[in-house]
């Protein structure tokens, strides 16, 4: 257990973060009033966020080991343990999840009119699953949280979604379920080979290339669906378009990260040889995702669909950076996960805000509002610039790191990503131009109210903070990324010896 640094905080911080939202969700059913329910879940989510901050402030950036760890034997017969811990790779994702939940609750304050308690229950349940996924260090535990995410997310789309919600939710469910089956196969294969479910322990074993090849393929499909990588992305636009605002935000900001996180947590350290073998394929699929996502986004008339396709392109940068196996590529990819969460989440919130006024997501219906809603245009402008990786915003730093890593590694691949960067500017500027100036504008729209400003401001702060001073966010990653690169190199060196 030398890779765990047991929790020093005096209370089980990660367990608290996982089970406080769950407990809060259960209490919801005791509450009569819907407003009370909203206030209650808002308080719970804010308290959870506040309790997650000590993770950052007490995080030891000098070690790659898993910190705040909790280790309790759970099913000893199968060596399944309740093991939690965060390292530089998962820390920020946990914080992102706890930050976004209160924002989502605020964004749904007026939007959700029916079955409010059930909606809030689902949201809090999702938070539990998210934090669980990113802090689980036991494969079975990870898998349970990975699956636990599915049902409330399915309900969010199926119950509170738009007109084609049934189609979208079923598609979402089938795709992710199919991926999960592959993940389970991979998990069992690893267990039968090593006799352990402990993720850090799995990293220390060596496997034959043949074994790595097949396990990588199984995991790769599971995670590629989540990311999503073209051509497995088709569930995403449908799910995004139909989901309520909060659902889209969670989906884009947290759920997609489970895929890329899976690659970083499982594929690279456990299966280094297969990762290196598959890297060129991942490059090409990433390039296709970047170009295809960007190109299709350019042609969209629906705001949400446009942002959904832009997600496909942005996540292409993340997978590209991940499989470069160099420091700037990996750190760029991990920063880009956070950036995508902040920026795309904020863009979906912006769509939600305008949707509450016009009840339409079409660009043509919402266009020309620069004089009517100047504050809104200010926020939309900032987040659009961030999404197109304008210098001084968060995405620029992330993309720059990925591009530096790419150009250092392979100039051809680097050159091929550049059209994707140009496309991002094209579709975001087109959206911004049309919304701000494209038409007459509906004068009955009201500019953003205080509640809406309150939940966008934190995200705006992060956009600029990471954009100008990414140090605090990158520092926590260094040790873990260095260790990860060592693991990959050691694995490949081993292959050479054989």
């Amino acid at each position, binding site marked *: 257990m030398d890779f765990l640094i047991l929790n020093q905080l005096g209370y089980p911080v990660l367990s608290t973060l996982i089970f406080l939202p769950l407990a809060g969700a259960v209490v919801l059913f005791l509450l009569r009033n819907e407003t009370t329910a909203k206030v209650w879940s808002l308080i719970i989510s804010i308290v959870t966020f506040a309790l997650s901050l000590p993770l950052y402030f007490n995080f030891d950036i000098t070690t790659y080991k898993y910190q705040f760890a909790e280790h309790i034997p759970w099913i000893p017969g199968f060596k399944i343990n309740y093991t939690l811990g965060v390292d530089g790779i998962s820390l920020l994702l946990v914080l992102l999840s706890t930050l976004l939940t209160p924002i989502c609750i605020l964004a749904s304050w007026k939007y959700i009119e029916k079955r409010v308690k059930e909606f809030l229950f689902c949201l809090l349940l999702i938070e539990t699953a998210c934090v669980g996924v990113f802090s689980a260090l036991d494969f079975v535990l990870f898998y349970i949280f990975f699956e636990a995410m599915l049902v409330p997310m399915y309900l969010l789309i199926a119950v509170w979604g738009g007109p084609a919600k049934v189609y979208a939710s079923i598609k979402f469910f089938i795709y992710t379920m199919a991926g999960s089956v592959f993940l389970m196969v991979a998990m069992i294969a690893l267990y039968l080979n090593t006799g352990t479910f402990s993720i850090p322990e799995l990293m220390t074993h060596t496997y034959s290339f043949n074994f790595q090849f097949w396990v990588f393929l199984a995991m790769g499909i599971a995670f590629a669906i989540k990311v999503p990588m073209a051509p497995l992305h088709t569930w995403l636009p449908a799910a995004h378009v139909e989901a309520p605002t909060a659902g889209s935000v969670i989906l884009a900001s947290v759920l997609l990260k489970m895929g890329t996180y899976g690659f970083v947590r499982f594929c690279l350290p456990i299966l280094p040889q297969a990762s290196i073998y598959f890297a060129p394929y991942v490059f090409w699929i990433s390039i296709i995702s970047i170009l295809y996502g960007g190109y299709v986004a350019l042609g969209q008339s629906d705001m949400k669909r446009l942002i959904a396709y832009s997600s496909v392109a942005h996540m292409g940068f993340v997978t590209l950076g991940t499989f470069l196996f160099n420091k700037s590529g990996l750190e760029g990819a991990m920063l880009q996960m956070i950036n995508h969460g902040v920026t795309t989440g904020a863009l979906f919130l912006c769509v939600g805000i305008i949707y509450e006024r016009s009840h339409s997501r079409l660009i043509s219906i919402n266009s020309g509002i620069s004089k009517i809603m100047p504050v809104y245009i200010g926020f939309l402008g900032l987040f659009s610039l961030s999404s197109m990786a*304008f210098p001084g915003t968060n995405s620029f730093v992330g993309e720059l790191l990925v591009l530096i890593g790419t150009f250092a590694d392979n100039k051809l691949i680097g050159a091929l990503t550049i059209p994707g*960067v140009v496309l991002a500017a094209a579709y975001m500027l087109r959206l911004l131009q049309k919304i701000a100036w494209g038409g007459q504008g509906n004068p009955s729209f009201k500019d953003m109210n205080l509640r809406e400003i309150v939940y966008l401001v934190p995200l705006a702060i992060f956009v600029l903070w990471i954009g100008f001073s990414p140090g605090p966010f990158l520092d926590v990653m260094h040790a873990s990324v260095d260790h990860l690169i060592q693991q990959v190199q050691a694995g490949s060196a081993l292959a050479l010896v054989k």
Partner: protein
Amino acid sequence: METIISIRPILAVLIASVASLLIMFTPKKPNLRETWSVLGAVGTFLTVLSMTPQVLAGKAFEYTPFVILPGISMKFRVDALGLIFGTISSFLWILVTFYNIGYMRSLKEHAQTRYYFCFAVAIVGAVGVAFSGNLFTLYFFYEIITIFTYPLVAHHQDEEAYEGGRKYMVYLTGTAKSFFLPAVILTYVLAGTLDFAPSGITKGIFPADANPTLVTITYILFMAGFAKAAIMPFHNWLPSAMVAPTPVSALLHAVAVVKAGVFCTSRVMLSVFGVGMLNSLNLGIPTAYAASFTIIMASVIALTKDDLKARLAYSTVSQLSYIILGIALLTPSAVTGGLIHIANHAFSKITLFMCAGSIYVAMHTKKISEMSGMGRKMPFTFAAFSIASLSMIGVPLVCGFVTKWYLAIGAMQAHQNIFLVVLLASTLLNTAYFFPVILRAFFGRPNEEVQVPTDHLTPTNGLQEAPAFMVIPLFLTAIGSVLLGLYPDYFMNIVKAVDPDYLMNIVKAVF
């Protein structure tokens, strides 16, 4: 080179930024709003001015507010090269602010708050470009200029304005993202830093053993990425951008935006690659040929334009390449000529554009063919126009001559006499497209069919000039053109301070 750590470089940018915010928050009080513009302009200029003595003494101001990544930071640096551009954009902003007031109020333009706000942010961008200490900061402000000048170009919000604006964005962001950004990344991969060379223009930042092919590719990407410099074939956005209100064309599309492009080109050639690297890779002369092609072609196209602003736009495309030509020749005199032209062209071309706007406000015409005899009704405007034209042509006593003198010597120093032919041909072409305007205005018979509305102006003594808010600034810049022709020392001293060892010693050796 001695470096002074000081917040003054950032202060210049900050004052303009604060002014833009104040403009945004006082939309209902036009006089107060325009006061912010004036105060912002004056404050920025004074800050720039306060740094001049030390820079002339060979020092540089530096400030790094943010470190983004190792080797990549938000870094401001005021050295002589940046000071040339910074001085000009901030000084001319003062004059154009008054001109703006005259123009926008005479024509009762809409969305004036947005207009002044974007105008101020564009200057923030220009001063930021001038005072960038590394490629990241340069890229940041370069993009700021692009984004915030779009609302100015598309100001009229009609079909034509959107079309011009679209072209503007496609060209400028397209090239910046496709070429400039990869060039920055390649530079970082090759050199490990984005900071400009700390002193002098002979040594760049690339290590001596860098792969020459990759360095050449990086160079080509940079040249293609700076579409704001309007080297052909990346010039087409500039004529389209003429749909903007004339003050925008005057300050931004004759000075701030295009000079940002040219300045970036110069900065990259001199402070990233360095004269030594460009010489050893033989990159200077091909660049000079590209610039020469642009000089000649743009002048020929200018001949065919009847719209005064379009003719001026092509003239700008042509004149910008003088600057690039000078630097690309890589000899001390040529570099001096190129850099001094940043100032000379700014004063003369802004005069010409302000004249075009003044003619439009007073006579409601944009076409040269309709300007017959107007010189007698608008003597001040056309006098200024004539002076500035002479400067463009390169007649002695006006500042354009100084440029051509140094460029010609520089071409001879480089033993590339073909560029003398280019300069000569260009001078003839300049004459051919400017003189007819002057002749027609002063000696042509007034065209009776052209109805000039007079209700918005009060003609006095048979004159029909634009408001004094407009005529005085344009007359001042015309006088400026003459003063810079007679006493080029102010900017010449700054130019020489860019690299005294390189630019002064060898000049003496040649003469």
